[in-house]
């Protein structure tokens, strides 16, 4: 049913209590039993008014206002239950029509200025604009629509993993992760994180690496010949720290003799 409004007549516009409702009333009066159907059929008072004007040549001026008002008022209670807002809109329209009619009835000296303020003008303007949009909505709906009238082509891209991409990280990522860790640690106070200079830690790893290759080295070999003074100090601190953590063993067989550093390789029995 292409919009009740435009359908060629013989179809019932709706069924009310099983009985076909064959005609829409000729005025704005809505039969009580068809009220709900009406509210569903028309988008609102503008829509209804437009229908009446177009289909039944209803003259805006000829609407029996008094009667209509009375009838509308009797529905207010009914509509109030569920569709208060809609009821209000119909009532507002009725009020507008009554206002128009009353103003038209007043003696009205015909001047150009007055004509421009014809009270019907605004309403008619609104009706025309609404009608235009209603038609536009229909045209819009007639345009071919993706998924309804055609389907988009979708061929799968075959992904051969030529290279497996590995995630990249940035220093910022690392720093953020570390701050998160520290912050959480701060929240859980029972975790004491010792804070030392990083370089000592780095050299601890390096010393262990050197020892891993040789198992035992002379103390001096752990110091790079090109090391700066700071590096020497830090390396020394690293060795002491490793010894403290029982990660290596420092030994000297006699006074002023060679100092050997040996990794306590816990993985292999010595």
């Amino acid at each position, binding site marked *: 049913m292409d*919009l009740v409004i435009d359908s060629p007549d013989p179809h019932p516009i709706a069924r009310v209590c099983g009985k076909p409702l064959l005609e829409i009333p000729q005025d704005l009066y809505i039969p009580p039993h068809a009220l709900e159907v009406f509210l569903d059929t028309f*988008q*609102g*008072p*503008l*829509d209804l008014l437009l229908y009446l*004007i*177009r289909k039944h*040549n209803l*003259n*805006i001026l000829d609407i029996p206002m008094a009667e209509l008002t009375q009838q509308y008022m009797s529905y207010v209670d009914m509509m109030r239950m569920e569709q208060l*807002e*809609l009821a209000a*809109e119909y009532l507002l*329209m009725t009020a507008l029509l009554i206002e128009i009619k009353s103003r038209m009835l007043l003696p009205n000296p015909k001047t150009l200025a007055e*004509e*421009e303020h*014809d009270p*019907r*003008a605004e309403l*008619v*303007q*609104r*009706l*025309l*604009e*609404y*009608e*235009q*949009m*209603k*038609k*536009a*909505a*229909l045209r*819009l*709906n*007639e*345009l*071919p*629509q*993706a*998924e*309804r009238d*055609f*389907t*988009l*082509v*979708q*061929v*799968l*891209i075959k992904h051969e993993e*030529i*290279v497996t991409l*590995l995630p*990249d*990280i*940035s*220093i*910022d990522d690392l720093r953020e992760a570390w701050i998160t860790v520290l912050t959480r640690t701060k929240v859980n106070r029972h975790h004491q994180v010792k804070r030392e200079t990083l370089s000592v830690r780095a050299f601890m790893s390096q010393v262990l690496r050197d020892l891993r290759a040789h198992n035992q080295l002379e103390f001096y070999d752990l110091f790079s010949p090109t090391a700066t003074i700071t590096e020497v100090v830090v390396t020394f601190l690293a060795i002491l720290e490793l010894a403290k953590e029982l990660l290596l063993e420092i030994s000297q067989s006699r006074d002023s003799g060679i100092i050997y550093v040996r990794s306590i390789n816990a993985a292999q029995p010595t």
Partner: protein
Amino acid sequence: MSVQSTLPNQPETQISDSFTPERIQKILEVALLTAQEPLPITELRKLFNHELSTAVLSKFLHRIREKWNDSGIELVTVASGWRFQSSTDMQPYLDRLTPPKTPRYSRAVLETLAIIAYRQPVTRGDIEEIRGVSVSSMVLKTLTTRGWIETVGHRNAPGKPALFATTEHFLNALNLRTLDELPPLEEMKSLVESGGESQQLPLQQPAAPDY
């Protein structure tokens, strides 16, 4: 400061880029058949490392369109670019495979959409003014969820109401390139025929929308 990928060889270097006309056409077809979204020519130029001009590609695209003519698949241009889609006469067959999933929209939705399309940008209040009834949030949500309308700003008025406009996705879905391609608004015939007084009404057509 992002770390550069340490991957050995990027595919780039491995493509032999001798672009014969057949090869260009083939690459374009594959790209368009596999694309998720319509592809603008600027994007298609990437396929050839920008070595081919827009004009050249445009010629190829038209040739491809010719080639696919009457195949049940057509190459079309929409707002965001070129894409392949089935022709409408094929849809009845496709519907046999997957029952239509798109809902038919109610009049309220369609009228709201039309008002937004033709009068944008508009507020909910504007829409209500034209339709003469309140617009339910569901209606606006339906259209927003479909990706057909979006908020493009707020009117500098009490309550700062949102201004709605249609999206590029809406144009794509309706096979349109620009809003100009929307069906033109019809002139409405006068509401009061041949009545004496009525003809004197200084009626104006609504101002033509300026898009």
